[in-house]
């Protein structure tokens, strides 16, 4: 399984602009009208790492790629202190690793 960085062909320390450029180039090479699957993969990869927030989220919650020391270093060196509210912290704890089980099991109405 390739990482989003590998899929878009960018370095793990690429900037927002570099990632966007790489994504647009991939779209140009794989227009949605010609290959929907490929486009969706590229778009998903792009959404995962398009900005600081999504990258941090990706690094933290995608196992086994995450190297926690690295992630923490990155978070601390980014200048902004990571501020977590109590609610956000609770949400983080409640989230599970496998994305399919994160989806809230909301009870369906039966008539």
């Amino acid at each position, binding site marked *: 399984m390739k990482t989003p960085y590998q899929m878009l062909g960018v370095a793990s320390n690429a900037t927002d602009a570099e990632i*966007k*450029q790489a994504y*647009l*180039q991939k*779209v*140009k090479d794989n*227009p*949605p*009208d*010609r290959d*929907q699957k490929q*486009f*969706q993969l590229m*778009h998903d990869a792009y959404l995962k790492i398009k900005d600081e927030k999504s990258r941090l989220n990706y690094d933290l919650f995608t196992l086994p790629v995450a190297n926690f020391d690295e992630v923490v270093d990155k978070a601390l060196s980014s200048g902004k202190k990571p501020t977590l509210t109590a609610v956000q912290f609770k949400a983080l704890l409640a989230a599970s690793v496998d994305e*399919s*089980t994160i*989806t*809230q*099991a*909301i*009870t*369906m*109405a*039966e*008539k």
Partner: protein
Amino acid sequence: MNEIIIGIDLGTTNSEVAVVEQGKVTVIADGDKNILPSYVGIDDNGDIIVGETARNQYLAYPERTIKSIKRLMGENTQVNLADQKYTPQEISAIILKRLKAIAETYLGQPVSKAVITVPAYFSDAQRQATREAGEIAGLDVVRMINEPTAAALAYDAGEQEKKHVLVYDLGGGTFDVSVVNIEAGVVEVLSSHGDNHLGGDDFDQQIIEYLLKHLQETYGVDARKHSKAMARITRAAENAKFLLSEQPYAQIEEEYLLENDGTPIHLSIELSRMVYEEMIEDYINVTMDAVHIAMKGAKLAMSDIDEIVLVGGSTRTPCIRERLSNEFGFEPHSEVDADLCVAMGAAIQAAMINGQEVDTVLVDVTPYTYGTAAIGTLDGESYPFMFVPIIHKNSVLPNRKVEAFATSHDGQMAVDVTIYQGEDPDALNNVKIGEFRVEGLQDVERGNIVTLALELDLNGILHVSAEEKATGLEKSITIENALSNFEGSTLDTAKQRISSLFGQLDSSLYGQDESLVIEHEQPAAPEIEAAQATIKKAESLFETISSEDKEDMVDLIEMISANIEAKDIAGLDKPVAELNDIIYYLES
């Protein structure tokens, strides 16, 4: 080389057809005009007429002329044309057939595939209806793209410089606004919003009301009862609107408009631009609100927008330019042709689908949020119809999202799934667009997981499926098409009906289309008729049979239809016999 795919802008007031040849876009002219008025009529001889001639006879024969049919697309209704009833899809198909013939005459070869544009804010039902219109016209609609996006494609023409563009598209009947990022040869729509029942027709209506009021107050007559007078008033209102785009006053003169107790009544009144702009101010406000919503959806500030592109005839109204330049601090662009750029964009996209080299690639979004209802909380209280959004507005197309749900009580063997379109946390305030039931779930304790998958295709059409996780039991639907609501009216019969209408036409006008029409009129071979009867019978049983049997039958019907299409009589024997066997087995 691949077969040519044409690009069509099927507008409320005007329609156009365009193609890309050797990398160049051409809007195809019919005679000396490249705009076809979206009017359909029946002339004195009972023949069907489309475009300018139909528009011209509208004054004399409003009862056998149809205009602005696009406003009814997707609605479960019919219109009267010379005492015959037609669905909006059929009327639209007549316009499409004409555009197809114009393209065929120009290209010198038959055309069977098209990219058709639709307003970005067209709903699922409106998109389905547009696709059906294409089918009735004998066109395979390979893609539907959004009008403002098409305009952006035509506007961009392979620019490399990064910029944010606001496309403001106000047509005869629909309004769209899209925020687009153009960068590195990709036209990326960031957000879309709109109103699918707002356009120049509403402006006309305001002037019409004004004139009617004037007639009532001055002469004490109600012109509404006179269809010919109404047609003249409508045309006069339209003309006044056009004049007011150019000058501050318009003089409206209609002599001998109607008779009141033997006295002829002449309509004579001056309308100023100021009065007119007051009449339409509310509509313009609605469009400006939509602009703000689209900007918010794109997460951009007004100052981030580099250019404004105006699309659609109604953007000629001066106060629209003024309002936009006040908001954004600069003038909208005017070098793109507001009437033709949508068809040009459709042709560019058609070329791209066809594998031709093009400079620009398109990434579009959905303007709607789609989801379902579930037991949850609303305003802090337990509520059975909480809206659960699954695909959010401004998500990229195509899109597939899966959500897991659990049954709510022990031994629950079925779930009803309803799909809504909208933003309201109360599902019942959103638009219900489809429902289905998943039956035969395992008899287990509550908490049985059922996953619901929503898939929006590149045309913006929604496909839905649900699956019981433990067993893989699956049920899927495409939101029902609008035509199926008409009893006995299927796409095939509609297709034949519209084709035969065209059969009465002056053949010289239609060139290549003629041979196709004749083909339709030939009596079908008896084998084909028998096969069609069998299919009808099979379909009539669908309601009452198991999904397994239905699947088998659908497969056979598909095989038979393909053979009928290919005129492969010999190939019909086996599948028809098999289908008859199943019917016999089910009925006995």
